[in-house]
């Protein structure tokens, strides 16, 4: 018997209740990272460089989820500034897309001036 062809269903619109599980948080302890339901990925951004005007964050870890398919990744907290972003299902995952969201999060945090955080793109040296 021939299997019916696989059908890939794109995620539907995000419900507001589901969105509440996604967003930014500061890492302040060792973690076992599992992407929350209704998020498409969990990203760690780590502060790796700074200069007199900016703070530079690097993509440090990306953990994915697809529907019920998930993985758990252990992360040892070192004390350095590390930010977790649980990415909503309909969000774009790129430095350019995350940049304004990170700036907003840090502006509310109140620990650095606006426009100072920069996410280093993976395509940059």
């Amino acid at each position, binding site marked *: 018997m021939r299997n019916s062809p696989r059908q890939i269903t794109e995620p539907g619109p995000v419900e507001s209740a589901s969105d509440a599980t996604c967003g930014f948080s500061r890492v302040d302890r060792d973690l076992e990272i599992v992407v929350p339901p209704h998020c498409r990925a969990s990203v760690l951004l780590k*502060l790796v460089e700074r200069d*007199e005007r900016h703070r530079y964050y690097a993509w440090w870890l990306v953990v994915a989820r697809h529907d019920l398919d998930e993985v758990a990744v252990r992360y040892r907290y070192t004390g350095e500034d590390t930010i977790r972003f649980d990415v909503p299902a309909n969000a774009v995952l790129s430095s350019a897309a995350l940049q304004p969201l990170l700036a907003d999060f840090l502006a509310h945090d109140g620990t650095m*001036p606006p426009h100072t955080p920069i996410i280093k793109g993976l395509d940059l040296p």
Partner: protein
Amino acid sequence: MKRWNLLIYAIAATDDEHRRILAQLAAMRAALATEQCNLVLEISAAAGTQRHWLAFTPAGVTDRVEDIVADRPIQALMTGLLDAGHAHAPDAATAFVLWAHGSGLGHMRRPRDHEPPASVGELFLTHALVEQAIRASHKHAVDVLALNACWMATLEVAYAMRGVAEVQVGSQVYAQAWPYGAIVAAISKSVPGGAEPLARMIVAAVQAELDHGQRHDAVSAVRSAPLSEVVTALDGYAARVTALIDTRWSDVRTAVASDAQRLDDPYQVDFASLIDVLGKSDKQAQKAAGAVSSRLRKAMIASAAHASHPGIRGLSILCPRSTHVDLDDVYADTGFAKHGWVSFLRAFQHKAVTERGGTPRASTSA
């Protein structure tokens, strides 16, 4: 009874920060209950600079507001505040608090430092600015220097400030605003008899908020006088651990890259944790580390930290894992540049770069 000039210079980078500062102003106004403390809060914001003179009188607390023309470099504005406070109460001790965004040891050769601020939102506090501001004031020094700004509680900054402040308070991590109302209430309840009791009051007020889960940062207070001995002892320790780069590279690399307690700042580690782990398998280094530790204990007054900053003990030191950090630039114009720790960092960077086949940075000071 001792009198105090509590002089607070706050820089509001955004409207939101300005609102938070004004809320703290209201809290201080409500808490001030002694004539022994002249409280002056100067706020630099996008709209301009205003100086609030708070005074306790039997009829209540008065708040006289003075507009300051901000046509001078930022350090001149700070000097102006110090001199105004001194002129108002010449016999009073001075606690100078800076509430702004800081960058610890930063790049200090900014031409902008010597110009009026184009935008207060762009300002990061550097220790060079603060030191120049205090030295230029009529008294040339303060009793307490409290830096409510990120990453300023470093050995290098404290050492640079030792000549202008008897006691220093700062934060090793991203600093949140201190509870100024609680601090003023503590001063009003029991006017501190010296710089150290006042510094302890600041640490205690932050500790109380940490205990109640209201903040997540750290604070510490140090005496300036013992810091020269700390750095002299550090020279001996640094000489030994620099030698270990050739003989025990793997141990040195592990201590710097993995074992020393890291902070928010990617370029610093906790100083006490560093000397615990760097050279721990070498008797000479251990002995030298002991000499540093004993002197460091003499300098420390008090500290408090949130549980998310484990293992930090009051002062940080530059120790970047990144080999791209320009040490000549970071240490430019600091008295620390000639000391042994910088030689260690240069040798460490050189070894790390050559190990992976790279070309070490040419140093102007090697």
